[in-house]
């Protein structure tokens, strides 16, 4: 990420496509579909407005996000009185292993503010956490819900254990008022813009339609559990990437159990906070069961819990059994190195791209590989010559970044067709293609078959429609262009 590296036309691309739509005056959720909250997209939009309409602006926001996340991460660790050496270690580690995302960290921040209220008894923390939670509902419904569940659990625990029952109830009411206040403010803002109800409707539909088996992407668990495997297969599975999912699960489970024991003995609020951080990570881990490729998402939280535990028990272990301390460090080291080996093998290759200086519209000054540069330039050239500014196109694959790069609008609501998962959504695409009849439809020959399922398999209705109503036009780089058949040939 940053100044070097190919553009990820899916992950980075989706934001860029949504920003394109917004720049063309379209309304989110109504004119284009997205699975995130509006606050996830607006920063990209503002950065594009301020720093220019380029992938560089988006990367700038990404870098800022990471910087902000690491700052919050370190600040919380510092609050927990973690030694400086561990703080430095955490910064280095987080720079090496991706996974820390502001979206993920916000839930932890809310918990942190609530715990701060418990320790310092200042209502300002309670107000801040309520406001933040209200806002997160417009960024990530998923993480806001996880945070709300944990806050509820925290409230219940205080209701049970605290001697001042009435005070707890009062504080909960206070928190809820600040939450609703912030929630309402954003509601009114987005109501004025005109999409807030659609956002909630779309989110509820997303939860209803795309939960369970209807998941847009993701595979089942690594077949370690319940499958008949021999020892060598087990060992191979153990060193595979997805085994990190299980290792994180076991690590977080053990940490949670240790922290429950600690809380029951020490009754320290800080221990309680880290316990909740651990539970938060466990819930994230559960939420990625269907997307076990996202195992790295919980790494920062494992690091967080580990550093707290190792730091707080260091003095004690030094006196009792220092070997145990080093064994723990060693085991975590292996876990860390495994992550680094996965994510930083191309570090030198990325650095070498620094020398690749060329001007690409909407990409520069980011340095990308020659292959991607050629692809982007040829498709930009084709579209600018053959498609008028007000005409729409449709890209059959999950390359939403192309809409941004060629600056043309999508003929359907789905910039990322992957998200049109249910049959109704797939037919919605067909209907919109019928309505808007884009003159060109583009197919990426090298499109990534998500989870090994090609887009042709995934959206048969859409491809059938395209086959019946469009004909092959030409090849442009790695893209196939289809054009609309004459009316008499259409079905």
């Amino acid at each position, binding site marked *: 990420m940053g100044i070097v590296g190919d553009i990820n036309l899916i992950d980075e691309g989706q934001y860029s496509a949504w920003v394109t739509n917004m720049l063309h005056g379209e309304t989110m959720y109504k004119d284009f579909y997205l699975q995130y909250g509006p606050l996830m997209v607006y920063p990209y939009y503002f950065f594009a407005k301020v720093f220019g309409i380029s992938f560089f602006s988006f990367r700038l926001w990404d870098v800022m996000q990471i910087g902000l996340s690491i700052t919050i991460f370190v600040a919380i660790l510092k609050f927990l009185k973690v030694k400086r050496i561990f703080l430095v270690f955490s910064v280095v580690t987080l720079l090496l292993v991706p996974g820390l995302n502001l979206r993920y960290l916000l839930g932890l921040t809310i918990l942190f503010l609530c715990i701060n209220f418990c320790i310092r008894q200042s209502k300002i923390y309670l107000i801040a956490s309520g406001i933040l939670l209200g806002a997160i509902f417009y960024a990530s419904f998923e993480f806001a819900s996880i945070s709300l569940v944990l806050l*509820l659990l925290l409230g219940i625990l205080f*209701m049970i254990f605290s001697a001042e029952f009435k005070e707890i109830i009062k504080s909960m009411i206070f928190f809820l008022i600040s939450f609703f206040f912030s929630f309402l403010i954003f509601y009114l803002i987005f109501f004025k813009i005109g999409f807030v109800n659609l956002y909630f409707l779309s989110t509820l539909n997303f939860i209803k339609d795309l939960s369970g*088996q209807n*998941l847009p992407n993701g595979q089942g*668990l690594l077949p370690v559990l319940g499958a008949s495997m021999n020892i060598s297969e087990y060992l191979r599975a153990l060193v595979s990437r997805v085994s990190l999912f299980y290792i994180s699960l*076991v690590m977080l489970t053990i940490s949670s159990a240790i922290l429950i024991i600690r809380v029951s003995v020490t009754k320290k609020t800080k221990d309680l906070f880290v316990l909740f951080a651990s539970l938060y990570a466990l819930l994230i881990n559960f939420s990625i069961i269907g997307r076990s490729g996202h195992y790295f998402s919980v790494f920062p939280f494992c690091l967080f819990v580990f550093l707290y535990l190792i730091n707080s028990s260091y003095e004690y272990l030094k006196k009792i059994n220092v070997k145990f301390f080093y064994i723990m460090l060693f085991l975590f080291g292996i876990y860390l190195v495994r992550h680094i080996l996965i994510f930083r093998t191309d570090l030198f290759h990325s650095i070498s791209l620094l020398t690749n200086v060329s001007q690409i519209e909407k990409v520069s000054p980011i340095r990308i590989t020659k292959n991607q540069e050629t692809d982007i330039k040829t498709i930009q050239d084709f579209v600018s010559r053959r498609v008028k500014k007000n005409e729409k196109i449709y890209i059959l694959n999950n390359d939403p970044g192309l809409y941004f790069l060629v600056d043309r609008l999508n003929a359907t609501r789905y910039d990322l067709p992957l998200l049109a998962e249910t049959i*109704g959504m797939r037919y919605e695409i067909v209907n919109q293609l019928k309505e808007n009849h884009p003159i060109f439809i583009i197919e990426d020959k090298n499109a990534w078959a998500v989870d090994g399922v090609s887009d042709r*398999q995934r959206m048969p209705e859409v491809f059938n429609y395209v086959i019946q109503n469009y004909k092959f036009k030409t090849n442009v780089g790695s893209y196939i262009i289809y054009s609309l058949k004459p009316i008499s040939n259409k079905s």
Partner: protein
Amino acid sequence: MKKYIGAFIIAAFLVSVIFQKFLVPTDVFSYLPSFSLDNWQKPYNSLLADPLFQFEPWRIFTSNAIRHFQIPIWNPLNGGGVPFLASFQNAFFFPLTFVYFIVGPASLLFTAIVKVSVFSAFTFLFLRSLKIGKLGSILGSIVASSNYMILWIQWPQTNVYMFFPLLLLLSEKKLSKKIYFLSISLIYFLALLGGHPETLFNIFIFHILYILFKKRNLIFSTLSGFTFGLLLGSFQLFPFIEYLLNSYAFFQRGVHHQSVLPVLSLPFFVFPQLLGAPQYSIYKSLSQSTNYAEYAAGSVGLIAVIMLIVYVLKYRRNKIVWPSLILISLAFVFSYLLGYLNSLVKIPIISSNNNQRFIIFAGFFSSIPLAFTFEKLLNKKINLGKLRFLLIPALIFFGAALFIKSSSKEGVYLIYLSKYLLFVLITTLLFFLVLFSKIRFKKTLLILLLIVQVIIPNIFYNKLTNGSEYYPKNNFIKNLIANKDQRILQIGNLNLPPDLNMAYGLESAENYDAMDVRNYKIAFDRAFSIKNHLGLVDEVDYGSLKQFGIGMVIADYDINSKKINIQKGSGSRILLLKPQIIEIHGVGGQLIGVRIITATFNRLNSCQIDIEVIDKTSTKPIGRNSFDCKDVRDNMFYTIPFSGVTLTKDSFYQIVIRPINLSKDNSIALLGGSKPYLDVLLKEKNPNYVQLFNEKSVYVFNVKDAQKIVSNIQYKNIHQTPTEFLFLTDSKKDGFIDLKYTYYPGWAAQIDGSKVEIQGKNPFMRIDVPKGAHYLKIYYVPKTFILGLVISFVAFVLVLSFSIRMVLFSSKFVLLHSKYRKNSLAILSKKEFPQTISYMSFAVTAGIIVGISLIGLLPSNINVAYVTSINWLTLNNHSLILDYIKIGVLFLSISISIILTWLRLTLKKQ
């Protein structure tokens, strides 16, 4: 005692599961012509229809939903779709129902045993709490459990009633107000889940009355506990209230419902089997609306009544138990008189309540004077004098009655009555003789004698059936299943009672949940207004069938014919001992059948009936047919086919129904007025119905062009579940889609992701669709369920927090925690650290191994709800839910292993 009850319940569970005997009265099927085409037998107990036609099909439906990880909030199979969870009686959330979801119908015997055991045990404890001795309390609990809990054990009413003695017990215990409030809330919550709000209302009334008379200081806690219990059950109560307000039954009951016990039923409180019982060969119901299960529900028998009289005469001023006398009186007043109040003052709650069931409280509270008086009399020396000499003639008469036989019906009944009264007299005499004697095993004998008098006569009221008889699939059912997508309407006879269809996954146009969506029911009754003596639709027209999307009709006659009624009336029974002649005039056409109503109950039915059509002018027979008596059913229509018989318009004919080889008890009767009921069926041109099946008097027809979805635009129904329809439309003009599915609050529609109004709501749904290509979604989201769920959750959290706080702040727990803390620090000391670490490492390893082993026991794949996406999971048929379960098991196994090991290390340490 707890151990015995526990062992008994476990044994009951094992017996139920191992022997696979189901408490489902499948023999009642033989009442239906469709299920007894070849082999008709009298049902063992004809009063047990509801468990077979309603409750078990509901359980089958819910089990299927559970297996697909769905909450059955909506039943699409009846009445064009009705709310399911909201109807309450399915007791979906009742804990005992969960056993059914695991072991299936084999659990029913077990749950019945649990219900009776719980009720008896709490009645015993309640009586003990009144300072009544053990033996008296046992006798009291026997009497209290002998009636309603046995006769209604298969109904959800007993799920609720089983908690009544527990509520009274708690009010007698000296509990702190907080604990009392919490307990009352939880019990009312459980009782609410039991699935019968009416019984809940009844037990609440008598609970409050008891509190008013005996524990006035608890009145506020009781009322608030009841309210909080309802709040805990909001997730089911709110949808129920919504359904009630939209129901047909609620508004109709007040008009037609009087619900009282007839005065004539009073003697049955003492002698419940005076008119026999449905499980005996002799039984006659008191009136059409008051059957054995109603009037015997509160009966207590002669011993208890004598005790009650002694109590009134001698001990009525006793402060502990005198309120029971008032409560018994009130129960009688409520069940015999309250219904009449409705004629004077229309109070909805009275008019819609089954007030006759208050009688059960008379039965319950009679156990108090019985137990109390018994204890008082137990040690008294009373000489019964010459009374003991009554026993000898009674026994002689009883013995003689066993050998007397009679050929007449009246004679058979009189012999039965003598035997029954003598049986009651002998058991009563023996009881009191033993009571005042000094013989060995006195206590055991007294218990046995009471059991013989009040329980034994009812013990075989319910019958167990074999797994092989469980919801059979005969040719009739197979035919229906082959056309599963069609909505069915039965006309004429009862062949597929509404809701029985759920057991086979079939769809019926009628519904039987005692509620009914009002708009649908009114429209249905308007469209199919001709009803017969069974209350079923008797005649249909093609237009109405199409209007209701009914694709299949089950009938007792050929509906392609023209049915003309010749003789009306079905109120009286005409015993077929001599030929019956019915005149026909002015009917022209080709005769294809004659339809009569037969009555066969309590008869031998091995006779034959001849039926002849005579031209009155020439006096010559022009058609003749005959049928065996065993082919006809009680209270049902029977159609005798004819061919080659032409009736000329304005001519006179006679239908002669003539018995062959029959006697008074070997015959059938015909229902009718002064003459037997009679329809003639004439051949009709241009039939609209295609016959799919016909065996004897059971026909199945397909209705041509009947559709459940009608539209004037081009559409494609791409997906359909009970609570969701997805359509794609493509039209050059504005149009509509009519769904022949009932509109009910909670149904909504979206076009291209934006909400639109459902236009038609009475009773079916219509959505206006604009021209162009659109994606239409119609779905059901029960807002009351969601709101109720939130309220229940909050209430549950409060109860839980409150309960745990009470434990945590108790001195016992504070001491325990201090020990735990001290030991925790000790096992982490330098000396014990290595050992602790090795224990904990072992715990982690054990947790992982156990977790993986448990996961290995899980099925490799499970059925999941149908989804429309095409992704890795669906292509590989991989259940994601199973993955969640596996990870959950692993997580729980590791964490529980660690925490339990830690607790073991700390709390066991001295």
